């Protein structure tokens, strides 16, 4: 197992937002995390990516506990995320946004920077090429010098995914990657996600509201309601699960 959650709970003040969550994600698996608004999906992301630390339970990556690790250490262990409400470095260029993620792999020191030693040029060239290769994959390379914050919403979402990929994740956490996109854009994005999963041999955990989409792409679904996992299984199992229909689809219809 790549990632394991054992009895993970978190509470803020008296409010339990996630209640003993038990689940796991295998290498190369694409898992959908669904649930009505306020079910605790984003909180689960914040827990896994190390922004919050659980009040109880443990998160284990490749057999090692992530307990006590800060967010940047979790990222360096290979768990990298995107954000629901896009958090790009908006005044930096698209290319620089991507390159920030590669800083953790930066092998030159201050001396190389100040004296412009060959090591500096080698590493910078390597990073740039790698970043442009990733951008090409998403057909964004022509935008590399644009200010990230000035680009359309859908493009920014894609850049966030590229930025996350540049950190060489083992597990990629995507928080509503298709939000605000139209049908064809969404379809294209989903194909891309599937492609990068195969190409980079990634595990992906995906929060998504679009049911059709998430059912079509996920190998497995985790359904969260009121901070608890109410069902896990293949899309077809979930579709016919009465609990899920009651908790999730019911809410969806009245919404």
């Amino acid at each position, binding site marked *: 197992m790549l990632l394991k959650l054992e009895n993970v709970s978190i509470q*803020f003040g008296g409010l339990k937002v996630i209640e003993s969550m038990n689940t796991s994600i295998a290498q190369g698996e694409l898992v959908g995390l669904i649930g009505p608004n306020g079910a605790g999906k*984003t909180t689960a992301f*914040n827990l896994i990516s190390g*922004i*919050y630390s659980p009040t109880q339970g443990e998160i284990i990556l490749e057999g090692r506990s992530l307990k006590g690790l800060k967010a940047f250490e979790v990222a360096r262990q290979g768990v990298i995320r995107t*954000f629901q409400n896009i958090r790009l470095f908006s005044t930096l260029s698209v290319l620089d946004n991507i390159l920030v993620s590669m800083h953790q792999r930066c092998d030159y020191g201050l001396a190389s920077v100040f004296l412009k030693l060959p090591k500096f040029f080698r590493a910078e060239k390597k990073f740039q090429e790698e970043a442009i290769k990733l951008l090409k994959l998403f057909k964004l390379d022509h935008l590399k010098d644009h200010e990230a914050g000035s680009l359309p919403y859908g493009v920014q979402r894609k850049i966030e995914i590229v930025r996350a990929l540049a950190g060489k994740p083992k597990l990629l956490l995507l928080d509503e990657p298709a939000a605000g996109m139209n049908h064809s854009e969404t379809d294209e994005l989903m194909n891309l996600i599937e492609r990068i999963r195969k190409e980079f041999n990634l595990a992906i955990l995906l929060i998504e509201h679009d049911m059709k989409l998430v059912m079509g792409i996920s190998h497995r679904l985790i359904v969260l309601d009121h901070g608890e996992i109410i069902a896990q299984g293949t899309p077809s199992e979930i579709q016919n699960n009465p609990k899920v229909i009651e908790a999730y689809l019911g809410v969806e219809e009245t919404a």
Partner: protein
Amino acid sequence: MEELVQHIINGLNLGAIYALIALGYTMVYGVLQLINFAHSEVYMVGAFAAYYGALRFNLVEHPGWSSFFVTLVIAMVACSILGLCIERFAYRPMRNAPRINNLITAIGVSLFLQFSGQLVFGADPKVFPEVLHDSVLFSFGEIQIRIFDVTILGVALVAMGFLNYFIHKTKTGMAIRAVSFSFRSATLMGINVNAIIMITFVLGSSLAGIGAVLVGLKYPKIDPLMGMLIGLKAFVAAVLGGIGNLTGAVVGGLMMGLLEEMVVAYISSTYRDALAFGLLIFILLVKPSGLFGQTRVEKV
């Protein structure tokens, strides 16, 4: 032993003044998430308003309670007006700007008041008029309790009591708490956030005005740069108590005053001003949220 009691009385006096000013920092921080650097200059202007008011109305010739209260009201009104102006003309246009820009604006306002204060009031220190006579009220052996001691503590307690009532028992107070809790939700709930912020500035600035008059009584030398150091200490008091928390500001202020008095009495007066800074570093290292503050979880 008697010496210690005397130091405690002095320390509480000083602490009460720090607490009054710390409350202003904490309240503005609560609603705007901004270190209001200009708060210490509001306090300075309060002292000068009281000074000129007392001269204008010839209060020195009739020292007594009524003169004292008139001075107090003058300082409070002057501070409130200044506080409102600062909010309206410097901070409000910056409401949606990045935090660092707000901080720079606050520093700019603070400097502007300090240096235009030097132009208007003159850079030389002035002697605060004696609007109330001091004398020994009781004495137990060596310990003396003077009228000023009682006045300072009494006035500060009444002001804090009123603030506590206002914040916790009135509708406006509830609105202030709501804005502190969440600016956006408060707006959505139909609270007139601008009005609430203005009221907060009036309250905080008035407390600074009271503090200014009390300091004027006890240490009757005022100058345009007087706000900086006391402001820094009051801010540290607010951080010590947990910034944004009213009880914290009061407790922090009193602790700050007591500590300072003890350091001066038993260690050395050279380190008087170093204390606040050392304390600040210590709090930031050990418990940045302060004694009463909760660590807020930033929403991601």
